[in-house]
């Protein structure tokens, strides 16, 4: 399928302009409205010289409104998929090569988060000393995590990414 053209859900602004397609890179779609900037920040996409297109409050048939990011010549690592899932559990990631969607992937929160996010318990050893954090997923919807060290259970809203 051609990127940005024949998609079931073309990304349009209110005035009907299609966010322009990219040749090679990654499209991160179906982000909750207002989350594009946060995702771009987490993935350090806004580097000097990099081509990034961000759409905010675009129309979406599925979710009403959505954010979207397109980044040229940049592909994501497994850990980056995990980070997106923590902020935008319904996001989809399209890998674009030569204007074609080569692969479409849904992000999902992994069973174990190794050193990705912080335990929400301020008195936890993992927040007191520089040690790798480790969280287990108790449930995905709603997102609930539990700390390997202190057994503290907390909701997704309390989750903060590391670093």
């Amino acid at each position: 399928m051609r990127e940005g053209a024949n998609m079931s859900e073309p990304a349009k602004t209110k005035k009907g302009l299609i966010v322009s397609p990219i040749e090679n890179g990654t499209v991160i779609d179906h982000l909750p409205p207002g989350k594009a900037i946060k995702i771009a920040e987490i993935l350090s996409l806004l580097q000097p010289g990099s081509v990034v297109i961000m759409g905010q409050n675009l129309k979406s048939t599925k979710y009403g409104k959505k954010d979207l990011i397109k980044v040229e010549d940049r592909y994501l690592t497994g850990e980056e998929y995990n980070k997106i899932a923590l902020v935008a559990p319904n996001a989809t990631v399209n890998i674009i090569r030569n204007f074609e969607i080569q692969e479409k992937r849904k992000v999902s929160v992994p069973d174990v988060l190794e050193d990705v996010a912080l335990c929400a318990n301020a008195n936890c050893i993992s927040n007191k000393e520089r040690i790798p954090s480790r969280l287990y997923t108790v449930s995905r919807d709603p997102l609930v995590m539990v700390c390997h060290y202190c057994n503290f259970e907390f909701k997704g809203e309390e989750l903060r990414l590391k670093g």
Partner: protein
Amino acid sequence: MEFVNRDVVSIKDFARPELEHIFEKAEDMEKKGYDKSLLKGKKVGLLFYEPSTRTRMSFDSAAQALGAGTIWFAGVEGTSVMKGETLKDTIETVANYMDVIVMRHPFDGSARWAADVTTKRATRGFNKVPIVNGGDGKNEHPTQTMLDLYSVQKTQRRVDGLELALVGDLKYGRTTHSLSYALSMFDTKIRYVAPDALQIPEHVTSFLKRKGIAFTKHSRIEEVIETVDIIYMTRIQKERFPDENEYNKVKGVYRMDKKLLSRAKPTMRLMHPLPRVDEITLDVDDDQRSYYFQQAGNGVPVRAALLALIMGAVR
């Protein structure tokens, strides 16, 4: 059931048959006396980052009863810890001299981290040095829970079928949370007696529901005192209340005195993790139902049995 080199971090790491096995060994030691040759030549490190004289002395006498040597690392003043040494570095170093490390530390999760450190160290060709959690912040104190449960079993000759009341600060008190988890492995009825603001938290009750354990919540000891087999009192701390009046109203309600105790069954036993402040009056101490001092004493056989098991001295 494998105990050798096992870390004792959380009560949830132990299954019912394992707890019963520890209790069987503890009872053996109480009955037959302690065999001083069991841990001869072994060294038990007592790494206490917080003052807890009771726990430290209990572990110390348990280790010494079986012939082990003990080394105290008491307090943090003047040690390398004050100079900013990480827990990992301290554990890596201390593990060189010790066969087992008993640790008390102010941060939640520190015991699991210490156990991870010595497990990783063992992959580098060293012996695994098991970590025994003597209290990690507000998180767990598994040997306290073991001695509590042992005391229940010892006084009633069983745990299944018992009705127990847990009284006082059930919200912040970790002993009542851990004891609830341990009791959930048995067929028990739990009565939680506390002011509304300090009732047992939802994460504990939802766990009990999943396990099918019957529990009820109450605001007065009088509602349960005549039927229960065990009353486990805990201290209500003044700091938990926004104003002194609220605290004063509540503290009298959750106090055990001779008059109230007289309504309990003669076989009921009154427990408390100690230290008590004024939630049990002094005139109760000589009542046959009072058990808190013996309960504390039960820490020695339980901890001795546990040390002997994880060091492979008994099976």
